[in-house]
């Protein structure tokens, strides 16, 4: 047995109104992994991701971070994850720069915020309120957090929504760079990722599956 995986799921189960929404026997996420969660609408992709971010509490089972239960090392775990969900947490009345600034980790300087926004194609849009931006641009503001965060584990729920083709390529490149520098990505999407070595994890609501090698 080598080093424990970055994140391990064991016998995770979550119910809503007496129906099993997520059931996951075993799932490991190691450094360098890109794990794509796939499944039809309503199959529990978002629920699985929200369980992983501790926004939801599982009914049974546990999530381990570096071999320790996340209940024991909650703050450590939370400072090592970054979650971008369906609701992008972008405040429409704030500018792109202000949005990124309050979500970014402490001690970040102004120039790196601007750089992150510029590399996502938002140069020239950083100081206007986000309600004046298009849906795709608002999405890019949310995704710019990826570039300023130092979290190792990325949980991305449908990150490609409203993003154009160039944006998809850009995001794929970000993911590649992230995993090659010691990170890991869990992404739920219906698109085929153009990234080598993506592991696929199908979710099918209540039925349980194994995805550990």
């Amino acid at each position, binding site marked *: 047995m080598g080093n424990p995986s970055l994140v391990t799921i064991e016998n995770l189960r979550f119910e809503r109104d007496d129906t099993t929404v997520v059931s996951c026997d075993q799932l490991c996420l190691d450094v360098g992994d890109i794990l794509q969660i796939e499944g039809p609408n309503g199959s529990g992709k978002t629920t699985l991701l929200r369980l992983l*971010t*501790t*926004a*939801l*509490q599982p009914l049974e089972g546990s999530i381990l971070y570096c071999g320790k239960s996340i209940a024991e090392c909650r*703050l*450590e775990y*939370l*400072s090592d*994850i970054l*979650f971008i*969900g*369906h*609701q*992008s*947490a*972008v*405040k*429409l*009345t*704030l500018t792109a720069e*202000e949005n990124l*600034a*309050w*979500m*970014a*980790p*402490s*001690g*970040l*300087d*102004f*120039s790196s*915020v601007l750089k992150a926004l510029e590399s996502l194609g938002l140069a020239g849009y950083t100081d206007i*309120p986000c309600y004046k931006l298009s849906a795709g641009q608002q999405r890019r503001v949310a995704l710019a957090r990826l570039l300023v965060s130092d979290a190792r584990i990325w949980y991305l729920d449908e990150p490609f929504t409203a993003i154009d083709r160039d944006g998809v390529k850009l995001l794929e490149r970000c993911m590649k760079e992230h995993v090659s520098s010691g990170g890991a990505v869990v992404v739920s999407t219906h698109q085929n990722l153009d990234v080598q070595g993506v592991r696929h994890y199908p979710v099918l609501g209540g039925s349980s599956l194994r995805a550990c090698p």
Partner: protein
Amino acid sequence: MKKYANNGFYAYLRRDLRLSHRRLGEAASPLIFFVMVTTLVPLGITPDPASLSVMASGIIWVFALLATMLSANGLFSGDYQDGSLEQLLISPQVLVMPVLGKITAHWLVVGLPLTIVSPLLGLMLSLPEAGYLPLMASLALGTACLSLLGAVGAALTVSLQKGGILLALVVMPLYMPVIIFGGATVQYGIDGLAWTGPLAILGAMLAATVALCPLAIAGVLRLTSIN
């Protein structure tokens, strides 16, 4: 070099103040409501200064309470809808400080302006001269209590689409001690008694709510997010 300090309290205080600043109309609506309904009292009841001066302190306090309560609804609902509340819940920090930052911003936007305009309304309602200082002092402390208690109600009803009336039912009993001692402070001042007594009790209430409400809110927000 401009750096960002994201230590919970100030980050959320500054963000919420900035959000209010961008939507001034919405942010000023509790104040406008407060001034408008108080103006209607002399028209609707009696313009007679002698009768008005008896009721003035009570009227101002009741409407200040209503204005604060109506605005408490929006404390967490915006964050809940756009997903920033979820981000707050999974951020690696103690929830209490950001929550306190948000409530402080709410008081600065609602409670403080109410306190500042209250002497004007006192003038309009023929409040006896000795009542002005107690009125402002009691409103300053009292509206802070009301913001904190209202935030508990707002946290409890955040996941409901129409939590407005439920919020009122939840917080109304909690608001009663505040209005009793707030009204008493002004009345003591008018009667020439030592009004610092009831004011001190308001201060004690504020100390208790500052200590306890953010804890309760943090717990409640965690519970609502789980479902």
